[in-house]
């Protein structure tokens, strides 16, 4: 049976900004404003995502790639006539999919954002761009990694030549790393509550 509200109520309560989904009036300005829409890159735009939450389609939505197509361009957020923080709601649902383990393990943006990008920050306090790229390219093992590198080698060479890529990929930690790490741990702890 559709529209069983137990999933929607979980989202309203547990996903970041999830309670705003109730307030969507389904006009579709968000979906029409998304730069990825015309590319056919997502199966559902924000409006359709929200309606699926309300319709109780838990597996379908949390396992979908739709939220992961957000480029954070904030077009939807400034155009929403209801003033909904749509970009943040979509981010919140993406994160909720990670937290509930429903996200597909092969979802490329999810993998990059969680396994590469965030870890990169947590390890040193700052993003090292070269390390970031190397992580990403080798995420599927050494074989695809090398072909990824080869594909991107022109870009990398250009960046190296213009002194905008550090040939030594691994940077040290920030000086106050210990405090930094403790802060993050505390923040995670508080958020869990």
């Amino acid at each position: 049976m559709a529209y069983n509200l137990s999933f929607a109520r979980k989202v309203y309560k547990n996903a970041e900004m999830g309670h705003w989904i109730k307030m969507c009036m389904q006009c579709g300005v968000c979906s029409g404003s998304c730069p990825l829409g015309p590319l056919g890159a997502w199966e559902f735009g924000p409006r359709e995502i929200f309606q699926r939450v309300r319709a109780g389609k838990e597996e379908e939505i949390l396992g979908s790639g739709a939220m992961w197509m957000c480029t954070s361009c904030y077009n939807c957020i400034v155009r929403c006539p209801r003033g909904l923080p749509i970009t943040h709601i979509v981010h919140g649902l993406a994160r909720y999919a990670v937290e509930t383990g429903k996200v597909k393990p092969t979802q490329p943006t999810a993998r990059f954002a969680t396994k590469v990008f965030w870890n990169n920050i947590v390890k040193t306090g700052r993003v090292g761009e070269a390390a970031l790229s190397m992580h990403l390219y080798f995420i599927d093992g050494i074989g695809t990694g090398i072909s990824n590198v080869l594909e991107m080698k022109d870009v990398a060479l250009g960046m190296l030549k213009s002194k905008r890529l550090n040939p030594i990929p691994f940077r040290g930690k920030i000086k106050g790393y210990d405090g930094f790490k403790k802060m993050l741990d505390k923040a995670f702890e508080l958020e869990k509550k």
Partner: protein
Amino acid sequence: MKEYSFYPGCSSEKMASAANMENSVHHMCEILGIKLKEIDDWNCCSASIGYAGGGQLPRMALTARNFALSQAQSPGKDVVATCAACWLALRETQERIEEEPVVKAQLDTVLKEANLTYDGHLKPRHMVEVLIEDVGWDQLKAKVKKPLKGLKVAGYVGCQTNRPFGVCGDNFEDPQYLDRMIEATGATAVPFPKKVACCGGALAFSENENACKLIKEILQSAVDNGAEAIVTPCPVCQLNVEVYQGKVNKMFNTRFNIPVLYYSQLFVLAWGGSWEQAALNQQVVPATALQRFA
């Protein structure tokens, strides 16, 4: 000499992708007599895709630490960012600290872990806001020594310096400030329908082909409107639109080869700075069109 606390962000580190912005901003401020005092030991803001790894509180904690450091090192000074994502993180966090006492209290608890405090009163600024509001249009024009006359430029504002906060109350759909900056250097701002279009942002890493499709539209629009260069305030826009031209050309059988610059590079050149001071030697696509003004 006006002094600001400066939050450069990861892409503006030495030998990072926006080193050309960092170098040109440095010289731009030198000419303007502005001192940027870098926050010592700043950390990453987690940019736009940090959401997947950290919840809102861990993400805001990152920025709160930067505020706390700034408050200790440059009390009361506005915190200036040049990177769109850094500025956005500062703005979002500051807004929530000001408007949500619960958030403020939680961040206080978190900061305590590192023996830091933040009273919540610093003002985050984008460098372009400093130029417009503190330096002023008259000064920006008065500094010109070598007008970039005849240079046709597409002003590419992009997303995050424009939405959701915007610069100086400018319109989200058709902001004017960047065109005015281009015109202030003596160059011509061409009509540019893709002015506020998205370059794909961080998805250039994980959804490269989709990002390249967006980048292609931006390049096409600039070229169709006769631009010789694209100018932007955003390091992600600059990077994506510049370095993926080769990939775009392969995908779409096109021959784009248009330089993508920062507003700061145009200013330094127009204000009499050298090619190197404008960091124009740090372009992946050479800024050939500007050589006549060097």
